[in-house]
């Protein structure tokens, strides 16, 4: 970008800013209890972009949902009714998103998802005011399935907790996996002991294992799997491999492949700047949640520069342009306001004392999602 266009851009931006009213953003995310690390990363990534923009026409209100749907609903009511926010964002969990998003968009608010993107909101329940900046929930599982096919796995054992996200996960995996299934197992949500399932894996004659076990469940499984002596290749979505979890798993995760739409070594200028700025400010490595929070804030800022948030149609169009430098590189929206982006395969490595991921392959290029056709907007 030459100086001239830069200056022009700034001038246009300044003009647009002068024309628009102040934008109030309400962030509802999980800051206490078991899942707090995800919400904290979301908030920190989001605020990093907001602070860097250094503008005074955007206010962000952050509140803790304690990972409870009823608290999230209450916070949404408060932000809509008494803080009069224009945009809501920040929810980590699909069940909380389902509690908040449909009624928020029905009341004319914008919702930008930093993470949760359940199928219901991508298909028949899609809404012109709802944008997922993260992915569609199935994407990472689809990526894992595509990778399993590319890697030549013929007989995979698949496993997820018995709840909607888990069921979607196995469906997503099977969508792009072409081999046979050595076994399909639903574990319990919050289960901590996987000895029985590992014994099943050992006995199943599988040549690989796909698992979706977010949070503490993934930590438990990875440790127990490594200790069991079963050495079939593991594949999973990025949820069990973010920075916080990897440090708790330790050596047991080394070499495991996981699918992700982002990685800290993704080679583009926006990402390099983001990772450096995040480490500088918070003294830790960013996670995928931080990256998605950062992108969401930048998307929002880009739209504010183009349109008035009170003009629904114009603001929708401005968001849909996705005119910002995503840390994920190429990024655009499909017809149902969910991203079109690459899904990568990462491998867990050790850098010095820190466990982290590096990209080893691209599982899917410019993947949209399976629900575009169901969405009538």
């Amino acid at each position, binding site marked *: 970008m030459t100086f001239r266009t830069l200056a022009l851009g700034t001038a246009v931006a300044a003009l647009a800013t002068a024309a628009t009213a102040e934008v109030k953003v309400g962030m509802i995310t999980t800051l206490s209890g078991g899942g707090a690390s995800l919400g904290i990363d979301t908030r920190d990534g989001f605020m990093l972009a907001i602070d860097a923009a250094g503008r005074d026409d955007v206010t962000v209100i952050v509140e803790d949902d304690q990972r409870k749907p009823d608290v999230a609903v209450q916070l949404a009511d408060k932000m809509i009714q008494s803080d009069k926010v224009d945009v809501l964002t920040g929810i980590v969990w699909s069940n909380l998103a389902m509690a908040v998003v449909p009624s928020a968009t029905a009341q004319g608010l914008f919702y930008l998802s930093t993470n949760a993107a359940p199928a219901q909101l991508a298909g028949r329940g899609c809404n012109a005011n709802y944008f997922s900046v993260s992915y569609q929930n199935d994407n990472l599982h689809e990526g894992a399935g595509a990778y399993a096919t590319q890697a030549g796995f013929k007989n995979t054992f698949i496993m997820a907790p018995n709840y909607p996200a888990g069921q979607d996960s196995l469906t997503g995996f099977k969508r792009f996996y072409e081999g046979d299934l050595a076994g399909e197992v639903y574990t319990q949500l919050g289960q901590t*002991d996987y*000895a029985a399932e590992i014994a099943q894996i050992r006995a199943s004659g599988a040549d690989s294992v796909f698992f979706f076990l977010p949070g503490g469940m993934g930590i438990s499984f990875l440790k127990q799997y490594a*200790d069991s002596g079963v050495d079939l290749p593991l594949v999973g979505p990025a949820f069990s491999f973010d920075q916080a*979890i990897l440090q708790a798993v330790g050596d047991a995760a080394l070499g495991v492949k996981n699918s992700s739409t982002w990685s800290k070594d993704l080679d583009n200028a926006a990402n390099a700047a983001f990772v450096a700025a995040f480490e500088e400010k918070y003294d830790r490595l960013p996670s995928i949640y931080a990256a998605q929070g950062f992108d969401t804030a930048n998307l929002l800022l880009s739209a504010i520069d183009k349109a008035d948030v009170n003009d629904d149609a114009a603001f929708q169009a401005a968001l849909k342009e996705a005119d910002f430098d995503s840390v994920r590189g190429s990024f655009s929206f499909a017809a149902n306001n969910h991203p079109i982006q690459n899904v990568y395969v990462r491998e867990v490595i050790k850098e010095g004392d820190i466990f982290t991921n590096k990209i080893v392959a691209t599982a899917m290029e410019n993947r949209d999602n399976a629900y575009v056709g169901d969405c009538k907007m």
Partner: protein
Amino acid sequence: MTFSLILEQVLNGLQSGIMLFLMAAGLTLIFGVMGLINLAHGSLYMVGAFCAAAVAGLTGSFVLGLAAALAGAALAGALIELVVIRRLYARDHLDQVLATFALILIFSEGTRWVFGSFPLYLDVPDALSGPVALPLGIQYPAYRLAIIVVGLVVAAGLFWLIGRTRLGIRIRAGENDREMIAALGVDIGRLYTIVFALGAALAGLAGALVGAIQSVQVGMGEPVLILAFVVIVIGGIGSIKGAFIGALLVGLTDTLGRIFLPELFKLVMEPSAATQAGSALAQIAIYVLMAAVLVWRPTGLFGARA
């Protein structure tokens, strides 16, 4: 499904049952001697795991971590007994439920405040990592075998302590007649502190042992606490023997249910739906077991009193 796989699953059920026993034994002991229901027992489990992870992380020694878990949980137990629990013995169960519920809130958020929201790292010691070969071609993790052994040793130690030692005589006397042993000159306050700390140490030990193969995180104690309650209801309150049998029953039902119920459903349904339905049923299997025991014996298998 081969015979050796079934045998391995039975072993897994035993191992999870034995961990439950360590939790349930402390709970049932505390209830038996002091008549106290302690919801914060799960927090002591968590304290054990965090102490172990922190010390093992600093020193690199798993054994030191285990020692720290025992000491830390016992200390935390003694401390809350002296400051809070002591005032609750004469109260009704309602006050005990409330106060120990409050302790859970304080312990959970306090731990998060000190250690942060991220799970801690604790790993199996090198000497016990990896599987060992058992007869019938079973490959079984050495660490899990060690857990079974430790659990059995602790169980034996507890039976010996209660049945054969002076402390055990006092504990049994305390269960039967509190005024009497006070009249005999036993310092009942000290006895209670010791019993509570002992129960806490057992919970802490369980937390540390399990922490090495699971996730050390805030809130890890409550699911185990509720399972321990189920164990006690099945086994009978105040009975160590009941806790032992109850824990094994719950461990086996849970593990085998998870494996065999989906297989059973596959006989009549298509696989994907069968695994969903089967594991949904497996999730509530232990509660069905509990209900069945209640119908048959309202005071549990070995419970004397209602």
